């Protein structure tokens, strides 16, 4: 994305936002206008930066670990039909578990530090990465597999030399989704137990009826998501270019 595009998109977003506020006349304690949020953002920039940094750390760690685990799981699923039968329902199941149910378990094991938040981000990122990569791994043109078989390939080498490169664009798609979900994962983790991070700041602002600060924190989170997405999109484009 070019800078000019970023500017255009931002302007558009602000216009829509202001438009909603003006047209629906929604009260500022439900949806404050851009100007108000910007003021809150600027006045609390130090606070937001501090908490933002905490969340960013969680997000980055979550992306690395969740992405890594997702890649490994997808590879395992691709190799082993037994894993497909046993693991896939569990994967799906795990996504259906509302966080707050897992929260006490996670915090019991991981404490209230960084660990449980990263775990939460990981849990959320894990599935899209696994799912997208696995789909890519299984969608190899059959001709390639025929060729590999006549060449005396083992399942392992087919995986590394054919399935994986063929699935890289899909992995890119998965990471794009993950980049978007990672911040929300970290925030949910923070809701579950923390005294730091943008999620905590939002809860606190909400509890103190400071809607503008809450939206300012949300703005920071949104910007973080968009930046991560742009980054992931770059990576995905590179992966796609590599594979074709």
């Amino acid at each position, binding site marked *: 994305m070019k800078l000019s595009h970023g500017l255009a998109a931002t302007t558009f977003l602000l216009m829509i936002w202001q438009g909603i506020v003006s047209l629906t006349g929604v009260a500022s304690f439900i949806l404050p206008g851009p100007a108000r949020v910007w003021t809150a953002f600027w006045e609390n920039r130090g606070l937001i930066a501090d908490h933002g940094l905490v969340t960013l750390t969680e997000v980055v760690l979550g992306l690395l670990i969740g992405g890594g685990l997702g890649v490994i799981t997808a590879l395992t699923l691709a190799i082993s039909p037994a894993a497909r039968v046993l693991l896939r329902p569990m994967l799906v199941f795990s996504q259906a578990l509302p966080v707050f149910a897992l929260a006490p378990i996670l915090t019991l094991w991981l404490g209230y530090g960084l660990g449980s938040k990263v775990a939460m981000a990981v849990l959320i990122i894990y599935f899209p990465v696994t799912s997208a990569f696995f789909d890519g791994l299984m969608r190899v043109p059959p*001709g390639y597999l025929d*060729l590999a078989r006549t060449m*005396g*390939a*083992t399942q392992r080498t087919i995986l590394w*030399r*054919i399935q994986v490169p063929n699935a890289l664009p899909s992995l890119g798609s998965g990471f794009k989704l993950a980049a978007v979900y990672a911040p929300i994962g970290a925030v949910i983790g923070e809701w579950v137990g923390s005294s730091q991070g943008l999620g905590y700041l939002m809860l606190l602002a909400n509890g103190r009826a400071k809607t503008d600060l809450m939206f300012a924190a949300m703005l920071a989170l949104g910007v973080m998501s968009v930046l991560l997405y742009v980054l992931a999109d770059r990576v995905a484009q590179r992966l796609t270019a590599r594979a074709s």
Partner: protein
Amino acid sequence: MTRGPAIRVEGSARSEGAPLFAQLSLTLEGAGWTCLLGASGVGKSTILRLIAGLESHVTFDGAITAADGADLSGRIAYMAQSDLLMPWASVTENVCLGARLRGQTPDAARARDLIDRVGLTAHAHKRPGALSGGQRQRAALARTLMEDRPVILLDEPFSALDARTRSEMQELAVELLRGCTVLLVTHDPAEAARLGHAIFILEPSGLSEVTPPPAPVPRAIDDPDTLALQGALLRRLREGAA
């Protein structure tokens, strides 16, 4: 290199209930070139897939056996009709794919040499997407020659090449595949006449053999015997089953 065994294909194939080809009995001469011709859609590629032990859309009722009694799997190199180059890999990487898939270290010098001999040295770093049709085919050929197997199945390996490159590639293949049992599917009677130790024409009703001249392959293109055979083949094919 070990000598390629003779191979016997005996049986009939049905596709979706209808017979694709009737009972046939095809013997590939050990360590020699067998050419298979026939109308488009008659089942040539299917036979290749059957010999290669690959899944196909037909049910084959019969047996495919090597004269030495051993299993064929692991002894075959197969070049499909579509080039099946990996789009993410360079020409060099594609040529080395077999070794990589077997978990071996590819013989880089040999790969370089083969790429050179198929005339792709200047393109060795390119992805298949940046190659011309003929260049892609030559890359696939180099990959097949790299395989070093006693039995070689070639499905129209020279179809996208100009006359000159084609004859060069034919000569290269004959040279490098000496001692191998080669089955070549081709549409070009001249090619069959030039390369075949045995020549078969596949028709839905079965197989018929055309005897080539005794001269060693690759035969000279302008050798009168070769030309005569080419003419005869062409006539046979033109008349066909019609």
